């Protein structure tokens, strides 16, 4: 079974794994400069123009695996020398142009930018073209295509553009750190910083959880990950890595659903606050709507807050599909509760650096949340859960009319409508990634069955409703 969707992910993984091995051997400081040679042994280059460039890029990946540029607050960084400077030509007529007689393309063009040669083949004058795309929509042979850089196409908040020397650059004032560009760049030239070393250090310095206990909080999207092993084996691996205990972030989702239902029925309108990239998007692109964001912490932060209430010295590492979570844990409102955020990609590298063979491990259990907390991992789950919470609270006065948006384009449309007061729904569930968290950039794999895997995992939960899942922490919530 494929471990990753792409070779770019595998490259990142190889670097992370080497960094983790050196960290455990206490050889990182002396040897980190040797890692590129392990990644690209040579003598011939396999991936780039020469072995030296290949290694130089690997060295940049090592830096990112070790936390990246401390002076750059953005979790996502461009590796300048890895950027292949993809051509940017906008709309172009391709070889499928049949030289037809109708010339719908030129009729549709508002700028008179299309000319024809003697064989009636269309040509676009780049000086006149404004990239409106009307010609492409008219061509009966789909011969006109928009050539956009994959990173720019992936970035739905338009934060990526061409900088100096055609190298991609990120506009931090727009970037929401969703990681779409990281996953989509075919050359791996955009990458998220890793805090794996922080997590390893936290565990090692705990002296086998004697000085303080380190908890892993795992996102419910794990249901669609590590498909070559059983979830219980992943939990065992986390215990072997040294975590004192593993807790479902989905329990925090149960808490959020319950509180969100109350806040929503009081205020009459809310947007969700679970997805940190969506929240950042509202703050940056729709600042007027900021007061409408739910005041709840995210499920990750909510459950971590609870864990720290049961164990004030606890340290918490969140593991999920999300690059934006790495930013969220640095926010003043979340920092006291979560100490580090990792992705599933990083967990895979960590597990393999310790040579833990997942399919050979015995199975441990993971069960803290209800069905409804667990389905937060996929688009629509949060809305379903808020509906359920309203029912469990016997709130019949408030009629929930949610709109579940996955992907920034859908989110943008709903927010735009709300800003113009034409949105008929009263709750915006916003998830920056298509499909919800299962579409996250930090996932190992993305597949068609991910949603059904999440629903299946939800149904396996011991607790069938939110109230029951919360009953185990009710003494805490009373306070």
């Amino acid at each position, binding site marked *: 079974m494929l471990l990753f969707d792409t070779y770019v992910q595998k490259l990142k993984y190889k670097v992370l794994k080497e960094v983790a091995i050196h960290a455990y051997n206490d050889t990182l400081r002396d040897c980190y400069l040797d890692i590129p040679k392990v990644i690209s042994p040579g003598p011939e280059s396999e991936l780039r123009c020469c072995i030296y460039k290949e290694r130089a890029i690997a060295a940049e990946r090592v830096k990112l695996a070790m936390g990246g540029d401390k002076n750059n607050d953005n979790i996502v960084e461009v590796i300048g020398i890895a950027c292949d400077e993809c051509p940017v030509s906008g709309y172009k007529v391709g070889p499928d142009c049949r030289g037809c007689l109708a010339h719908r393309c030129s009729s549709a063009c508002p700028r008179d930018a299309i000319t024809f040669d003697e064989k009636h083949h269309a040509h676009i004058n780049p000086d006149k073209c404004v990239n409106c795309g009307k010609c492409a929509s008219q061509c009966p042979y789909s011969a006109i295509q928009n050539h956009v850089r994959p990173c720019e196409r992936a970035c739905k908040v338009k934060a990526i553009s061409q900088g100096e020397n055609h190298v991609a650059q990120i506009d931090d004032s727009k970037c929401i750190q969703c990681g779409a560009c990281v996953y989509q760049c075919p050359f791996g030239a955009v990458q998220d910083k890793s805090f794996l070393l922080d997590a390893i250090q936290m565990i090692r310095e705990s002296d086998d959880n004697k000085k303080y206990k380190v908890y892993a909080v795992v996102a419910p999207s794990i249901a669609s990950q590590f498909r070559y092993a059983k979830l219980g084996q992943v939990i065992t691996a986390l215990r072997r890595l040294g975590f004192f205990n593993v807790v479902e972030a989905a329990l925090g989702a149960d808490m959020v659903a319950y509180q969100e239902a109350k806040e929503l029925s009081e205020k009459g309108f809310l947007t969700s606050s679970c997805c940190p990239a969506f929240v950042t998007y509202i703050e940056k692109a729709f600042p007027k709507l900021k007061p409408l964001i739910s005041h709840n912490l995210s499920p990750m932060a909510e459950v971590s807050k609870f864990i720290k209430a049961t*164990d004030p010295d606890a340290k918490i590492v969140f593991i999920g599909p999300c690059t934006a979570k790495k930013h969220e844990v640095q926010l003043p409102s979340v920092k006291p509760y979560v100490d580090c955020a990792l992705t599933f990609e990083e967990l895979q590298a960590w597990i393999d650096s310790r040579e833990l063979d997942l399919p050979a491990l015995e199975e441990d259990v993971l069960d803290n949340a209800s069905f409804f907390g667990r389905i937060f991992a996929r688009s629509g789950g949060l809305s379903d859960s808020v509906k359920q919470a309203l029912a469990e609270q016997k709130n019949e006065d408030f009629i929930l009319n949610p709109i579940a948006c996955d992907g920034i384009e859908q989110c943008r449309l709903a927010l735009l409508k709300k800003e113009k007061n034409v949105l008929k729904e009263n709750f915006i569930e916003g998830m920056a990634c298509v499909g919800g968290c299962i579409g996250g950039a930090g996932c190992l794999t993305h597949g068609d069955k991910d949603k059904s895997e999440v629903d299946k995992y939800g149904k396996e939960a011991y607790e069938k409703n939110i109230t029951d899942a919360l009953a185990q922490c009710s003494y805490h919530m009373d306070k």
Partner: protein
Amino acid sequence: MKITICIGSSCHLKGSRQIVEELQRLVAENDLKDQVELAGKFCMGNCQNGVCVTLDEENFSLKPEDTKSFFENEVLKRLK
């Protein structure tokens, strides 16, 4: 007096929620909220013998159906 109930996954599957609910009910019913504090903990390191419960410093291993007798024989008896 502090009763801590393990709510880690393993104990949760063995019914720690039912024990929490039952203890909460018994504490309220007997008007002991000021004397008895309930708390949760994720894992007490004795998963095989769950549900793990500690009464002040002493460890107990409970099943949901034992909760009432635990409350009467251990909790009530110790209250001064």
